[in-house]
């Protein structure tokens, strides 16, 4: 049985559709830029969706004051997929999965006067989004740090192949907030200039906000399938990756093993541009004999969009397969990891049939999934 990856969307500063995002990526346009926030004198380099743009779009769907920034992003993203696919979320054969790390964290920060404080709970946030689409079931929520989005896609595949549901829309989303900016800053993990994944001069991450959605189905709705996917834990440290890349290696090994293939045409890596993460990935890919496979990270364009990242990057991977395009890994110039990697330096068109998507996160978690043309 196959699970297909169909209609999809990206809501980001680069656009409100997948097409507009892909166009920007092909032109090498990045969403991350230096900006000031009222809460700090420091500059932050991050990608943030303009409230006015979001409200202009959202006002065509519903009242802008009734929803939070994140809820509006999610509803716009899911609505695009619903419109494209005709999937009815009322129908109990269909499910909505939301992946997020912090949900409406701005509600907990007290950013809204007219929004009930309970919406700061992830389940209430998800229910609000689900209610907009009259979902037959309360949306399933996956909150597993930075692998949330990719893990949600793997979970969706498993539920479909278990015949629990026929169609599942996975929406990954997180916002820029003082909460996450101050937290990552306290880790000294933020870069004040655009992130440079895998580069020798990388100094840290940019944060970003986005909502991205994709439809998975047991019906042959597209020519791309998710062939396999697994997660694994480093069992090493809660805030630092394993030096040996153990968890990522295990997730990749199991994922390639399940599909009985040895290599892939390209890798959509996690690549946060921190010293330790990128180094860990180079070790894991080298152990998996994938060091010659063309690889990119999209963090130089979007920053790290946390719970959205796995979905957003999977959507771009699917589009890359469909258009036979290897997208340049923004910010990369000189090898900066102890092990060799084939980081894509220039966007090029080339026939590609398979993609390995990976993610790693706090709590020692790692995930890998294989997307292939049917």
């Amino acid at each position, binding site marked *: 049985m196959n699970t297909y990856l169909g209609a999809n969307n990206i809501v980001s500063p680069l656009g409100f559709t997948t097409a507009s995002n892909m166009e920007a990526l092909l032109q090498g346009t990045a969403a991350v830029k230096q900006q000031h926030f009222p*809460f700090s004198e420091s500059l932050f380099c991050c990608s943030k969706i303009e409230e006015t743009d979001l409200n202009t779009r959202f006002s065509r769907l519903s009242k802008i004051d009734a929803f939070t920034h994140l809820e509006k992003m999610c509803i716009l993203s899911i609505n695009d997929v619903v419109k494209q696919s005709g999937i009815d979320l009322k129908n109990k054969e269909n499910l909505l999965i939301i992946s997020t*790390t*912090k*949900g409406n*964290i701005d509600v*907990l*920060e007290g950013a809204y006067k007219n929004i009930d404080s309970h919406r*700061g*709970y*992830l*389940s209430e946030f*998800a*229910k609000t989004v689900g209610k907009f689409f009259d979902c037959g079931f*309360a949306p*399933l*929520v*996956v*909150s*597993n*740090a930075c*692998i949330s989005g990719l*893990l949600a896609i793997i*979970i969706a595949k*498993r*539920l479909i*192949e*278990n015949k*629990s549901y026929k169609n599942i829309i996975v929406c990954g989303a997180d916002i820029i907030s*003082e*909460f996450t900016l*101050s*937290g*990552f*800053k*306290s*880790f000294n993990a933020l870069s004040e200039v655009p992130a440079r994944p895998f580069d020798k001069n990388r100094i840290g991450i940019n944060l970003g906000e986005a909502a991205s959605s994709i439809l998975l189905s047991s019906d042959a709705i597209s020519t791309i399938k998710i062939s396999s996917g*697994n*997660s*694994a*834990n*480093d*069992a*090493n*440290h*809660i*805030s630092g990756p394993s030096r040996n890349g*153990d*968890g990522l290696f*295990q997730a990749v090994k*199991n994922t390639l093993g*399940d599909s009985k293939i040895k290599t892939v045409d390209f890798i959509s890596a996690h690549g946060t541009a921190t010293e330790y993460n990128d180094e860990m990935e180079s070790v894991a890919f080298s152990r998996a004999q994938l060091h010659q496979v063309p690889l990119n990270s999209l963090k130089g364009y979007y920053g790290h969009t946390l719970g959205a990242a796995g979905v957003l990057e999977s959507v771009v991977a699917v589009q890359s397969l469909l258009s036979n395009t290897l997208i340049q890994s923004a910010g990369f110039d000189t090898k900066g990891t102890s092990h060799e990697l084939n980081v894509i330096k220039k966007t090029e068109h080339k026939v590609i049939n398979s993609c390995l998507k990976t993610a790693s*996160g*706090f*709590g*020692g*978690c790692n995930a890998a999934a294989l997307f292939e043309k049917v």
Partner: protein
Amino acid sequence: MKAKIVSYCKIKNNTVWVNGEKFYVDNQSVDITTFLAHLYKQLNLNYPKFFKMDNLCKLGILATELAIQNNSEFNNYEKDKVAISLSNNSSSIETDRNHIKTIADKNQYFPSPSLFVYTLPNIIIGEIAIKYKLTGENSFFISEKFDENLMCTYDSILLNEAQSSHTTAVIGGWVNVDGNEGEGFIYCLEKANFNPDRTGFSSSYNSETIHKFYNKTE
């Protein structure tokens, strides 16, 4: 479904039950922090990392320890084949509130990395993975209440050979902390054919039994 539940621990209202039997009652603690410290002492854990954890992780570690102590086969599992599949309603909300307190006052702005790292619910999965060296599958779900149907469906998929050969056993359940209220329910599941001759507690795993065990607090 070819899975069995081989041990479980429930912690609620300063009381601990193991495999349905009352194991420990603390009538003195007035808050969850003190209760968790008392229970830690009671278990003689000698795990200094415990004191760095937030209450969510402390609760999860103690419930997991008791579930594992009562699972005679635990040391026979290959550690890369043990999945951790947890859920709660409040995510990491207590630590979220504490992090917000550190950034609320511009004159006393001290966000701390050792606190911030606990603002993710799956950190408890990481803590369990580290303590017991478990490198298998991970998943953290959010649901308003303990959702036995969701957990049972997903855990059964993990243990189902046809879909995945990577999981022999699952540490599963619910760990929730909100304000001074905490509730932990951790169970060990294994493939029904793992050791057909195992002795002691064992029950078939389905949403009815798990619902019953979750509610079995006299």
